């Protein structure tokens, strides 16, 4: 493994596109578990998945609109995706209050709407040059300088917002009634939180693709959850596991010529399994 890491490192130094890919991957490895820690303890893992699917329809919409006019084409499709995911996040909150006793219904409703819309829009865009496989499974080598800038800005927004609202987010996640009583503006913060999820998805899209985004948000946190006694430890371990997955996954994918997104997620699964097995041995 060390050998393949060294090989990978040499390649990164030689090729700028690999460098972009690595930086984008490492940034994702920070923000995905950061937001993921809150997503998991709030039992919202499935929402991340739904929003990722909705974002796909937004991206497809971006491609379509871009083919009709130069004005639309000036904005990269991923921005349309982020905007549509934000609207979907709002709709999910709205649906959850409408179906109060079946609030989990909101997720499949939004998710199927997203997937349905994606299929139709991508069908319409068939003549266009749309990298469907890249959208679904990620295409980390497609990260351009402009993409990298967007990813850095989005990640900074996510990290700074989480730092500023850390205590409010933690209180709302742990005991929302007491938090509201303490004057925490629950509705506003929940919306900001959904917006952050959408931003993280937009950051991760090129790295692992629509289908695997929620894996990067939840798997490292799932492993950390088995070991962490404090919330700080959950965040730290989550980031360590995610970064390890990204680094080892990318190096392995490069060395053995595998699909990068899938390999990163498989490494995350291996880490999770290792933690589970190690814990079981410890108890026995």
């Amino acid at each position: 493994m060390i050998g393949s890491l060294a090989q990978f490192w040499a390649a990164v130094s030689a090729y700028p596109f690999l460098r972009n890919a690595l930086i984008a991957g490492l940034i994702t490895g920070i923000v995905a578990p950061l937001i993921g820690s809150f997503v998991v303890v709030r039992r919202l893992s499935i929402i991340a998945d739904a929003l990722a699917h909705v974002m796909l329809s937004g991206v497809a919409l971006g491609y379509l609109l871009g083919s009709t006019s130069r004005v639309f084409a000036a904005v990269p499709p991923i921005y349309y995706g982020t905007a549509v995911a934000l609207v979907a996040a709002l709709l999910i909150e709205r649906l959850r209050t409408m179906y109060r006793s079946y609030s989990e219904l909101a997720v499949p409703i939004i998710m199927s709407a997203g997937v349905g819309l994606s299929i139709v829009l991508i069908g319409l865009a068939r003549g266009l040059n749309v990298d469907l496989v890249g959208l679904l499974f990620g295409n980390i080598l497609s990260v351009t300088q402009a993409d990298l800038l967007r990813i850095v800005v989005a990640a900074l927004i996510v990290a700074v917002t989480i730092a500023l609202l850390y205590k409010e987010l933690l209180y709302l996640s742990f005991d929302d009634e007491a938090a509201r009583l303490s004057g925490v503006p629950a509705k506003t913060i929940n919306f900001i939180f959904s917006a952050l999820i959408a931003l993280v998805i937009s950051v991760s899209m090129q790295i692992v693709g629509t289908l695997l985004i929620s894996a990067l948000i939840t798997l490292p946190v799932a492993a950390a959850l088995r070991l962490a006694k404090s919330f700080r430890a959950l965040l730290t371990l989550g980031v360590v596991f995610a970064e390890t997955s990204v680094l080892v996954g990318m190096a392995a994918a490069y060395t053995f010529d595998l699909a990068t997104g899938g390999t990163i997620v498989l490494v995350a699964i291996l880490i999770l399994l290792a933690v589970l097995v190690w814990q079981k041995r410890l108890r026995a």
Partner: protein
Amino acid sequence: MAAFDPSNVVLEAEGVSFRYESQYVLKRVSLTLHRGELLGLVGPNGSGKSTLLKVMLGLLPLAEGTVRWFGVPLNRFRDWARIGYVSQKAASFNVGFPVTVEEVVRMGLIARLGIFRRPGKKETEKVLEALEFVGMADFRRRNIGALSGGQQQRVFIARALVGDPEVLILDEPTVGVDRHSEVRFYALLEKMHKERGLSIVLVSHDLGVVSEKMDTIVCINHELFYHGSASGFRAACDEIVARAYGQEMKIITHAHDPGEEAIYR
């Protein structure tokens, strides 16, 4: 128990009603809490005790009646840091939540700190002080889910105390804790009252202990059945209980308990 100050009203609820559709959960209930007063709110299960608390705290909408905190109407009251609340739900939190005792108590500082401000050194000291007060300082790095019910309860009380409130509201704090923890809880209650001069509202269905430990009793079962001194409640207990709880209700005495306390079963 020390006498409270009858001229200094902390909380005043008048004619509070609350309905789920056409069903009245609360019908014109009134109560008053004075500075330094220990008020026991009793009533059968499902009599609307928790609902009354939530309406008074603004967690449920106040449709009829008025509520004033420190003289300020509920809809204009913003100074929630003056009130500490330990909900019934606090005892049924997600035990798998990765959070330490210290992290839980730090949450209680939010009302004082306000948004965007991060707790500093002074706040860390306050957290430790609150944990020492409830006797849980040694457990501060432990995961909250790994503690016993009684220990968790004391942590949640520390969380309510850390912001230096003037009023403490406790919703069924002794449910699901063992006898030893219950005795410890009432000792803590006395300490909070004596050392911090807190006004306390304690919701309980444990009539015996409450009527002994508190100054004032409020007995409700959707409507108000009694609001007055604890001694007055003890004197007319059978009659009040028969009216509020129904005839089949009896107060039984636990002979095996050293303190011989009446417990509602």
